[in-house]
């Protein structure tokens, strides 16, 4: 009996693994098809659309521009105020409507409070992705205070439907001003606490510095926006560079990534931009509270019926996640002809395959967390 020995060739193959749609750190129903070589990521294909609710089709089906507002809340459900604000500004621009001073100030304060709330969630879940459980709950304690303020003015904690075309649904209560001022005062030390606990934690820095580096040119080519772009060192904030509402009246800085602990544009920079933006939001809120007129009818400019002429606008506003664009085409009918949302998370997520090549599986989690996506916004 002859015994033939075949050449025993050791072969390694890449493994395709599905991360999501049910995975703890894809922040919702994102599915990443990851091709792994050992634990090193060779390719990532994001599959989105699991939360698609046809916002744009819904908007076209509404018989009034105001009826779209509740749907805008649900695009990005963790920063609903910013979504409403953006949409309402777009419609007001089409209507060429002037809004009372007091309304503008309340809107800005709410938008900035919402930005803090949203960043708190983003920071908390980012820590959670890296295994730090406690900062997440600390962030939630603070977020809770903001939600309480929102609940007092609008009756809702998540989806407010509060800002309406030309004004606000109702005036803010008298307690709004002192409570917001009180929050600003108590929140500052909490940022320091967060920095001590998480931002400058050795392990946290080890996990996020030099990971998922996004160079500035790539970021611009991919039209990244918000903390994603600023993390790469580009000083671009629509509140300053293309001021809308009354943002030109406030003094504040634009925090940018500086590569303090690693390379410019790494996960830590994106994270830190969010932390520093919260401080800047506090600065804006303080100024707004000071300048805000005490009297004024918030319903003054609200049109009884919205009569549109033909026209189109593209209005962009700065939400916590980046540039939110509403492209609205109006015809003479009461329902919008076309509403397109340029969702910041959608665009920011499209960069993921480019920046996660060669990272480890654990880094992929960190990168996804640092983009701070909201799947409601990605899928709309």
């Amino acid at each position: 009996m002859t015994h033939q020995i075949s050449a025993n060739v050791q072969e390694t193959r890449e493994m395709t693994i599905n991360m999501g749609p049910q995975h703890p750190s894809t922040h919702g129903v994102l599915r990443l098809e990851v091709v792994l070589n050992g634990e090193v990521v060779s390719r990532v294909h994001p599959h989105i659309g699991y939360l698609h609710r046809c916002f744009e089709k819904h908007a076209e089906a509404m018989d009034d521009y105001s009826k779209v507002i509740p749907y805008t809340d649900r695009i990005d459900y963790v920063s609903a105020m910013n979504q409403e604000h953006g949409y309402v500004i777009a419609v007001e621009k089409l209507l060429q409507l002037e809004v009372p001073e007091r309304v503008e100030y309340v809107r800005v304060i709410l938008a900035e409070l919402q930005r803090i709330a949203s960043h708190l969630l983003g920071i908390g879940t980012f820590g959670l992705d890296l295994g730090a459980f406690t900062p997440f709950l600390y962030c939630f304690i603070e977020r809770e205070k903001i939600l309480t303020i929102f609940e007092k003015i609008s009756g809702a904690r998540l989806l407010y439907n509060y800002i309406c075309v030309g004004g606000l649904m109702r005036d803010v209560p008298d307690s709004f001003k002192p409570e917001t001022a009180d929050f600003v005062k108590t929140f500052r030390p909490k940022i320091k606490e967060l920095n001590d606990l998480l931002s400058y934690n050795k392990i946290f820095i080890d996990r996020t510095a030099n990971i998922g580096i996004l160079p500035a040119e790539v970021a611009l080519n991919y039209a990244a926006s918000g903390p994603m772009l600023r993390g790469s060192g580009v000083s671009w904030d629509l509140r300053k560079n293309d001021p809308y509402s009354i943002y030109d009246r406030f003094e504040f800085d634009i925090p940018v990534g500086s590569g303090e602990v690693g390379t410019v544009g790494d996960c830590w920079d994106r994270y830190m931009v969010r932390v520093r933006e919260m401080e800047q939001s506090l600065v804006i809120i303080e100024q707004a509270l000071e300048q805000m007129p005490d009297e004024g009818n918030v319903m003054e400019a609200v049109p009884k019926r919205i009569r549109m002429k033909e026209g189109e606008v593209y209005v962009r506003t700065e939400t916590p996640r980046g540039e939110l664009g509403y492209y609205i085409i109006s015809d003479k009918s009461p329902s919008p002809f076309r509403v397109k949302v340029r969702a910041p998370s959608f665009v920011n997520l499209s960069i993921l395959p480019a920046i996660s090549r060669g990272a480890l599986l654990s880094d992929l989690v960190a990168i996804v967390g640092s983009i701070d996506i909201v799947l409601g916004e990605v899928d709309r």
Partner: protein
Amino acid sequence: MLEFLENIIPSSTIALVVFALFPLVLILVYALFAIWAERKIAGFIQDRLGPMRTGGFHGWAQTIADMLKLIQKEDIIPKDASSFLFKLAPFMIFTASYAAFAVIPFSSGYIGSNINIGAFYLLAITSFLTISIIMASWASNNKWSLVGGMRTAAQMVSYEVPTIVTVLSVLIVASSMNLMTITEMQTGNDIMGFLPNWFIFQNPFLIVAFALFFISMLAESHRVPFDLPESESELVAGYQTEYSGMRWGMFMLAEYADMLLLSLLGATLFFGGWNSPFGTFMSGPVWGFGWFMLKGMLLVFVMMWIRWTLPRYRVDQLMHICWSILIPLSFVNFVLVALWEMIF
């Protein structure tokens, strides 16, 4: 204690079984308590209350309720899983943890098996954990489990080296592998007139050894910041992904048992085991058991404290810490401990 049991129980076989079951009862009671305690500690660290309802006082019966729930759960075995190994793995992992308790001197009156190679046996038997985890991860036929299993294998095999070297540093001071003898050597309060004769006070380099041992211990029992095998935000649940019900409960139990085991080993080697910190005051077999558990629990508490404070390391950083920091340090420290022993 065995003689005492034989005196009160007519059959010596039953007496032996009762004698052997003591650690099991201890582990179960401890696990119930520790899981509850972990939740409460996590709650207090995170500025919330933790379980408050079940059982009345601070939700003390929460873990019991959870256990009952786990027992009632449907036992799911994936279709393509290797059924036999899948079923075997949870029992094997628990058996390994349980078997290791045989050589732990719980008090001057109780040690399961007073063998001369106690420390060696303990380190050897805990290697079974690695095998069981790989078994569980491979048998699950799930990619997440497999990645988790591979991480575990790499992690536990690597961290066994610094653990063993630091244990060895104690063994050269004690010149014995018998854990009971090692504990007995630490009786008395002679250092500087009042400090107990615990090894950690006897040799300054053993303080370093303890620090190294504690870090390796966190990795061995895969606790944060080294909980990569089951890092829930990356690998879903690592090797436990496909397990449910009581089989999963066994993993949980083994994890807590492992924590206790390593903490008790640390207490035996560095903190005088069942010795009272006040010399002969409050000493004796029963007090000894209390002191021993207290020391173990303190270490467990520190592990929980770390768990709820720090983020998690990445797999390559974990390996880096082990091979480039802990292992060289532990070897250098081993030599220094030996030199100190020679000179003084």
